[in-house]
């Protein structure tokens, strides 16, 4: 009797683990709400994998727990005298193999869409993001789409403005970020955008996204961007260890409702930047206070 208890013990612990994930969506232990155009692809593939893994988790653990219960030893008993089973081996090689191959192939198009440079959409808005220990510098041109933007990203321009830790765009815009780092590795992580990309020393890496929801409005009288919804304070984090301050490279994502709202903000930000630093040439380092 005591022997059978071990199967039950395993079963209870495994069931508790399973339930703690299963209640996740109900209590807010889950993916943050998606606001990215390619986010549904990512989330869909996540649920596909979650479905298959949950099935195999339940299948194997239930069989294990049942076998532990059912085949608990009794004195004088003997086990079945078998060494294997050819057809079973084929079955549990071919079926999981097919499923895994399907999972692998299903990823390819979403991966191409998110990361392949050749497949990135033409941008409506271009900016450059430079990481350093320990903040982000966002560089905006005086127009959303500077001419020859690949070149623009490499050469500092007098009219550009630099803002620490604030990423502005508007809803529906194809945003192209040229990602750089001044010092060590960092990783630009926007959980709600399902976006992550390491910043690599000595390289400029193009990144794109398109936000499908807005969270801010520019208030011309105060000169501030106000959240339209308290629960839509979307954050930027660093996901690659970059030293002691790694945890505090927090930034914010401002998605304006319209392009006009964005342009109003941009004009204001330009004016503010000029009045702050009338004669200093703006470089990523100098723009910081």
């Amino acid at each position: 009797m005591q022997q059978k208890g071990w199967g039950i013990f395993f079963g209870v612990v495994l069931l508790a683990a399973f339930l703690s994930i299963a209640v996740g969506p109900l209590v807010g232990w889950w993916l943050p709400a998606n606001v990215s155009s390619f986010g549904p692809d990512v989330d869909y593939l996540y649920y596909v994998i979650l479905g298959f893994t949950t099935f195999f988790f339940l299948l194997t653990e239930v069989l294990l727990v049942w076998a532990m219960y059912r085949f608990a030893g009794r004195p004088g008993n003997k086990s079945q005298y078998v060494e294997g089973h050819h057809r079973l081996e084929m079955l549990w090689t071919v079926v999981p193999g097919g499923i895994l191959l399907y999972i692998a192939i299903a990823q390819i198009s979403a991966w191409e869409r998110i990361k392949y440079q050749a497949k990135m959409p033409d941008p409506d808005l271009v900016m450059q993001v430079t990481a350093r220990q320990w903040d982000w510098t966002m560089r905006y041109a005086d127009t959303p789409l500077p001419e020859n933007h690949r070149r623009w990203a490499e050469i500092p321009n007098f009219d550009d403005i630099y803002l620490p830790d604030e990423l502005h765009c508007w809803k529906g815009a194809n945003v192209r970020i040229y990602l750089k780092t001044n010092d060590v590795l960092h990783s630009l992580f926007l959980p709600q955008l399902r976006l992550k990309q390491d910043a690599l020393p000595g390289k400029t890496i193009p990144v794109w996204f398109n936000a499908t929801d807005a969270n801010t409005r520019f208030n011309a009288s105060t000169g501030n961007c106000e959240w339209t919804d308290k629960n839509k304070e979307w954050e930027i984090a660093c996901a690659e260890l970059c030293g002691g301050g790694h945890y505090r490279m927090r930034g914010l994502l401002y998605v304006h409702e319209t392009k006009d709202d964005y342009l109003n903000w941009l004009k204001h930000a330009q004016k503010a930047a000029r009045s702050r630093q009338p004669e200093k040439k703006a470089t990523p380092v100098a723009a910081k206070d």
Partner: protein
Amino acid sequence: MSVSHSHSAEAHAHHELSFLRKYIFSEDHKIIGIQFLFSGLIFFLIGGTLALLVRLQVGFPKGINLPWFPISWGGRMSPDFYAMVFSMHATIMIFFVIIPLLTGAFGNFTIPLMIGARDMAFPKLNMMSYWFMWPAFAVILSSFFVEGGAGASGWTSYPLLASATMPAGEGFHSPASPHSGIGQICWLVALLFVGVSSMMGSINYMTTIINLRAPGMTMFRMPMTVWAMFITAILQSMALPVLTVALILQLLDKTINTTFFLPPGGMAFGNWHTGPGGGQTLLWQHLFWFYSHPAVYIMILPAMGMVSDIISTFARKHLFGYKPMVLAIAGIAGLGFIVWGHHMFQSGMDPRLGTGFMIATIMIALPSAVKTFNWLGTIWGANIQYTTAMLNALAFVAMFVIGGLSGIFMAATPVDVYFHDTYFIVAHIHYVLFMSSIFGIFGGIYYWFPKMFGRLMNEKWGKVHFVLTFLFSNCTFFPMHIIGIAGHPRRYYDSTLYRFLDNVQPLNQFMTISAFLLALAQIIFLVNFFWSLFRGAKAGANPWHSNTLEWTAPSPPPHGNFVQTPIVRRGPYEYGNPDMEEDYLPQAEPQPSGIPAPAH
């Protein structure tokens, strides 16, 4: 005359060994294995203490102030200190605990005994492989006390955080982190010694297994433990040179200002600019992961082998699908060399490479699945004896399922965009390396302890230890999946800064409390271990009624292992033959009359 003379000379040599030669500078594989076991357990305590410091900071980033807990604590460690603590926790657990325990302790102890050899092929080399660990021990421990402290760039030590160096003549300070000075140099040197030690071990294991098998011990009569150790040794010998090169390159960058990992334009740290470089940080990632992905298998395959033998023994049943199990290990090892790029999907390497690495990585789940189903097949229809060793081995299977399945999320490149470097990967690695490898190691200790020391560990306290460890380790590591799904980045000093993590903050505290309980439960193990060493019940040669060759030798086996070289007559898994009185038939036992011999 001459025969008897040489015989007595040999016996003489075996008895004349001084204490120093017998226990310290020993060439006996069993003693060397036990040496690896003891130093591994000591470092397990150090690595575990560091883990508790990590959990303390992550669970209570603002200090402890709980209504129900008598102690409140406002002290905080600095962010740099925290980074050092998690970096050294992982470094010690991987390079000083799991690899030395699995290959050093169990590989050494089991291989010659299980194939019926008197010792390793190169006993002196074997001794050297252990003694090369000691410079590593000394350097890694003293690195905590050097200026700036021990390394703090993670166990992966990515440049430039790890490798950035001030110009020649300015000492070994790093502009990137105070810990990346002498502490990082110590880290590199220590790992170089560990690597050389492992290399000597793996050459020895391969040679021994190929050349010193007892008569009748064909390759396909070898127990799974030996197969796993054999394939692991091949993996190690092919992967280690690449790590060694990477370590030396970074060491050169740090000491004589080469620029293997500094890009051509140089970099700026604050207002200070390095000179121009000529390298690439990605180079390190490729070299490091070319070793360190196979290293993940170095840290799991031996445990898989050991667990297979333990399960078959206590299921009292033939291992299900022996040859598929061998093939699966070989498949994991082979595929394991072409998947390293899955650590670099978001690194900025060409995303087209990512597609190839993804397909190989997802397919590597297949041999793992095959192994799992065969373990289930082994206990199906079994007559399970729930010893502590068996419980730990079954826990390995139950937990490896979770660790294996969670890996698929990060192997899938688009899903990895979100999950990369979150706590989901921390959960995954702990389900593979703690929940699987460590349960395998515990199983191995409970199983071979009587052979090592001639006494049994206490079963009752062993089970108490198992229950608490199984419970609290799941409480410690399972919620990491959940906070990973919520997007919690790893290696964060204080995650309360982020609103999107507000919901999962209580889980961080829960995991920390569980981790301390998990640590407390290990005291039971230590007391049981040392108490049993001196007071445990006498074991006899074959306390588990097991079939493999080590159980035909006395417990503990003398120098030279076997009184008579065993002659192997069958495979290692002859359990439960219905025609026989006993339910087991050891490998070297002559075929009982009237019982038909199996075909192989």
